C-alpha cells in the first residue's frame, strides 16, 4: 500500500492538490488536458483490443462483460433508494447514474498497478469498462422519471428526448473512442501494433502522471463545493467504493475470474463517473445539482480509489484466493 502511495501518478495527484491548497496558479492548459485523456483512452483501447485478439474470445470474456453490465444496471438502483430521502429524487438519480458508471482514469491507474505488480489482465476488461457507461446513465434517468418528487412542475419540464439520450449514452466520446480503438487494436496485425507501440505504450505512465496532476488540481477545486452538501454525500462517497468493489469481487469470485480481471472489475464497480455522466445529465436531467455529484465522484471517490482502494481491493482479492496469471 505504501508502495502504491509512492507511485509517480499518485504523487502527482498529491502535487496537484497541494498546488491548489497553496493557491499556486499552476494549471494544465485545457485543450492539452482534454487531449491527454483522449490519449489514455486510445492507448488503453488499442492495447486491450490487441490483447483480446491474442487471447481470443473465451467464456471468461463473456462472464466478465456480463458481470460489468450487471453492476452498472444494479448499482444505480440501490444508490437511488438509499439517497432519495436525504437528497431528493432528482439529486439521488444523478448520484445513482454517477456511481453506476465508471472512472476511466481509475481503471487506467489500476492497469498500471497490475503492470507493476506483474499480474496480467484480459483486454476484454476494457470493453467491460466501455459497456458500463450507458446503462448507468439510462438507469438514472429512468429512476428520476418513475419516482419523481419535487423538482420543477411538469409543465416546465419538456418531454425527455430519448433518442438524444440514447445517442449521448451510447456514443459519448469516451465510449466511442474506447470501443473504436479496441476494434482497431483487434484488427491490426502484430507488425502494425509494434509500429504504434512507441506512441501508445512507452509514454503511457508519464502521460498518466501529467493527467493525475490535472486531476489533483480539479479535485481540490471541487472539494470546496461539498461544504454545502452535508455529511450524507460525503459518507456515501467514501463508503460506496469499497462496498461496490466488495460486491464486484464477490461476483468475480463466483464466476471464477482471474485475479487481475477481478481487480479491474472491483475498480469499475467501486469507481464513479465525472466526465461522461455529468455531460449526459446536464442535457437529460439538468435539475440535478452537478455541484453535488461531480465533487462526490471527483474529489472524494476518485482519490479514495486511487490511493487506498486499489491496493485494498487487491489485498481482498488475494485473501479470497483468486489466482493471478502472468501478463498476457
Amino acid at each position, binding site marked *: 500500500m505504501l508502495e502504491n502511495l509512492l507511485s509517480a501518478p499518485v504523487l502527482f495527484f498529491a502535487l496537484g492538490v497541494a498546488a491548489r491548497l497553496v493557491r499556486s496558479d499552476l494549471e494544465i492548459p485545457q485543450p492539452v488536458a482534454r487531449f491527454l485523456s483522449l490519449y489514455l483512452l486510445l492507448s488503453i483501447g488499442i492495447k486491450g483490443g490487441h490483447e483480446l485478439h491474442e487471447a481470443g474470445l473465451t467464456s471468461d470474456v463473456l462472464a466478465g462483460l456480463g458481470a460489468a453490465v450487471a453492476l452498472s444496471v444494479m448499482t444505480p438502483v440501490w444508490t437511488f433508494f438509499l439517497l432519495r430521502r436525504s437528497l431528493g429524487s432528482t439529486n439521488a438519480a444523478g448520484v445513482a447514474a454517477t456511481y453506476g458508471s465508471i472512472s476511466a482514469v481509475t481503471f487506467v491507474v489500476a492497469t498500471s498497478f497490475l503492470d507493476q505488480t506483474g499480474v496480467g489482465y484480459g483486454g476484454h476488461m476494457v470493453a467491460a469498462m466501455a459497456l458500463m457507461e450507458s446503462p448507468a446513465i439510462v438507469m438514472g434517468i429512468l429512476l428520476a422519471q418513475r419516482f419523481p418528487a419535487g423538482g420543477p412542475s411538469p409543465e416546465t419540464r419538456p418531454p425527455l428526448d430519448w433518442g438524444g439520450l440514447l445517442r449521448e449514452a451510447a456514443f459519448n466520446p469516451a465510449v466511442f473512442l474506447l470501443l473504436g480503438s479496441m476494434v482497431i487494436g483487434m484488427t491490426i496485425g502484430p507488425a502494425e501494433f509494434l509500429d504504434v507501440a512507441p506512441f501508445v505504450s512507452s509514454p503511457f505512465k508519464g502521460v498518466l502522471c501529467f493527467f493525475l496532476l490535472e486531476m489533483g488540481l*480539479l479535485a481540490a477545486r471541487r472539494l470546496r463545493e461539498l461544504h454545502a452538501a452535508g455529511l450524507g454525500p460525503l459518507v456515501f462517497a467514501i463508503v460506496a467504493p469499497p462496498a461496490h468493489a466488495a460486491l464486484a469481487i464477490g461476483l468475480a469470485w463466483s464466476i471464477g475470474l482471474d485475479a487481475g480481471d477481478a481487480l479491474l472489475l472491483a475498480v469499475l464497480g467501486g469507481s464513479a463517473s465525472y466526465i461522461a455522466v455529468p455531460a449526459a445529465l446536464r442535457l437529460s436531467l439538468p435539475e440535478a445539482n*452537478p*455541484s453535488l455529484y461531480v465533487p462526490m465522484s471527483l474529489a472524494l471517490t476518485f482519490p479514495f480509489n486511487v490511493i487506498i482502494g486499489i491496493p485494498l481491493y487487491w489485498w481482498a482479492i488475494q485473501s479470497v484466493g483468486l489466482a493471478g496469471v502472468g501478463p498476457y
Partner: protein
Amino acid sequence: MRDVKRIEIVVEAPQEEVIRQLIEDAGIDGFTLMHAVAGRGQRGDRTSDGLSSAFQNIVFVVAATADQTAALVEGVRPILKRTGGICLVSDARWLKH
C-alpha cells in the same frame, strides 16, 4: 446601416444544439458563437477544466429584427430557467453591405 437588436445569450456548453435550433426556429439566419467561456452566477462558478466542456459557458451573439428577437427570447426563456444563464438584448445598428 439598419436598426437591429443585438442579443447576447450565455448558456452552458451542453445547450449549444438547443440554442442553435431556437435561432433557426426564430427565422434568424446567422449568429456568432464563442466557446470556452467562464462565468459565475447563481449556480456557482463555471470554469473550463480539462475533463469535459459540460461546465463551460458559451456565448451566442445574434443580430436580428425586433420580431425575430421576440421569438428567440421566448424560446430561450425556459432553457435559462432550467439550466441557467443570461440573455441580454440591446439596440444596435447593422452595417448592411
